[in-house]
C-alpha cells in the first residue's frame, strides 16, 4: 500500500494499494485532475479504460481524459467538440483567405503579362515603319509568323 494515497484513492476515501491503476497518473499533489475526470467519466469507467490499454499508453490516455473532462466542465454543452468546431471554422477562414490572395496574384500576373505584350507590340510597329519607311503591314499582319 502506498504511504501517501493517490488523488483518486483520497477522493474515493479508500486505501491505495501498490497496484492502484490510478496512482501513476493522478498524483496526490493535483486533486482537481482526478476530480474532473471522476465527475465526467466516473472512477470505474476511467479504471476500465486504463486497464484495457497497454501500460505505455496509459499516461497519454489519462492526460487526454483529463483534457476532455476539463473542457466538458468548462463547457457542459459542447465540451471539446466546441474546440473542434472552432478549428474547423479557422481552417475554412484561412483557406478562403489563401484562395483570395492566390487569385489576386494570378490576376496581377495576368495583367502584368498583358501589359508586357502590349509594350512589345508598340515597339515592333515603329521599328517596322522606320526600317521600311512606309508601314509594313504585311509582316505584322502575316499570321503565319505568329505561330513561329
Amino acid at each position, binding site marked *: 500500500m502506498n504511504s501517501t494515497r493517490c488523488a483518486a484513492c483520497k477522493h474515493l476515501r479508500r486505501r491505495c494499494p501498490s497496484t492502484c491503476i490510478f496512482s501513476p497518473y493522478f498524483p496526490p499533489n*493535483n486533486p*482537481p*485532475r482526478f476530480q474532473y475526470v471522476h*465527475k*465526467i*467519466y*466516473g472512477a*470505474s*469507467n476511467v479504471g476500465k*479504460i486504463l486497464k*484495457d*490499454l497497454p501500460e505505455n*499508453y496509459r499516461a*497519454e*490516455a489519462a*492526460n*487526454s*481524459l*483529463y*483534457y*476532455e473532462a*476539463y*473542457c*466538458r466542465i*468548462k*463547457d*457542459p*454543452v*459542447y*465540451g*471539446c*467538440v*466546441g*474546440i*473542434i*468546431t*472552432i*478549428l*474547423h471554422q*479557422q*481552417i475554412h*477562414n*484561412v*483557406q478562403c*483567405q*489563401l484562395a*483570395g*490572395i*492566390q487569385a*489576386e*496574384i494570378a490576376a*496581377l*500576373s495576368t495583367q*502584368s503579362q498583358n501589359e508586357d505584350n502590349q509594350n512589345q507590340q508598340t515597339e515592333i510597329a515603329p521599328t517596322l515603319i522606320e526600317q521600311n519607311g512606309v508601314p509594313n503591314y504585311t509582316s505584322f499582319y502575316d499570321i503565319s509568323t505568329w505561330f513561329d
Partner: protein
Amino acid sequence: MQQKQQGASSSSTSYNSPCAACKFLRRKCMPGCIFAPYFPPEEPQKFANVHKIFGASNVTKLLSDLLPHQREDAVNSLAYEAEARVRDPVYGCVGAISFLQRQVDRLQKELDAANADLIRFVYSDQMAPPVVPLQPSTPHAVVPRQVRNIIGSESGGGYYNNNNNNNNNNNNNNNNQTPIPFPYSLPWNYQNYNNNPRGGSGGI
C-alpha cells in the same frame, strides 16, 4: 390480443417503443424519460457508446444540469466524444484536435508565404499596391493560445454562437492564465502522436 400484448411490452407511452437507452438498460421507458428525446431506438450504438464511456448516471446528471434546449447539442457532443474514444482509446477527441491544429498551422504558413509572394510581386513590378488590403496573419495564429483562452474563460458555453466566440476572445485577450496546468505542451506531443499506431486516427 397481440395488440394488447404489444402494448404491454412497449413503453407506457403506448404508441412509442422504448428509447435506445431504456432498451439497453432493460428497463421500462417512462414518460419524461430524460434520454428518450435524444436516443431514438433506431440508433442503439449511439447510447451504447455513451454508456460505455460516460455511464448512464453521469449522462443523466450532465443533462439534468442543462436547460432543455441545450440537451440535444450536449447529447450529440457526448456521442461524438464517446465514439471518438471508442475508436481511439488513447487520445479520443484530443487526437482530432491535434490533427486540426496541425492543419491550421500548415495553412497559416501557406497564407504567410502567399502574402509575402504578393508583396514581392506587387513591388517588384513597381505597380500600385492592390486595393484589397493584405490580410493580417496574426489573428488566426497560434490556435493553442486561443484554445487555452477559451478553456480558461469563466463564461464558457456556446461555441457555435459566433457572437459568443468574439466576446470570449475579446474578453480573454488579456487573460492567458488557466487555473490548472494543462498536461500538453506545444507543439502537441507530436512525436508520441505520430509513433502511436493506435492513436494515429487523426480527424474523425
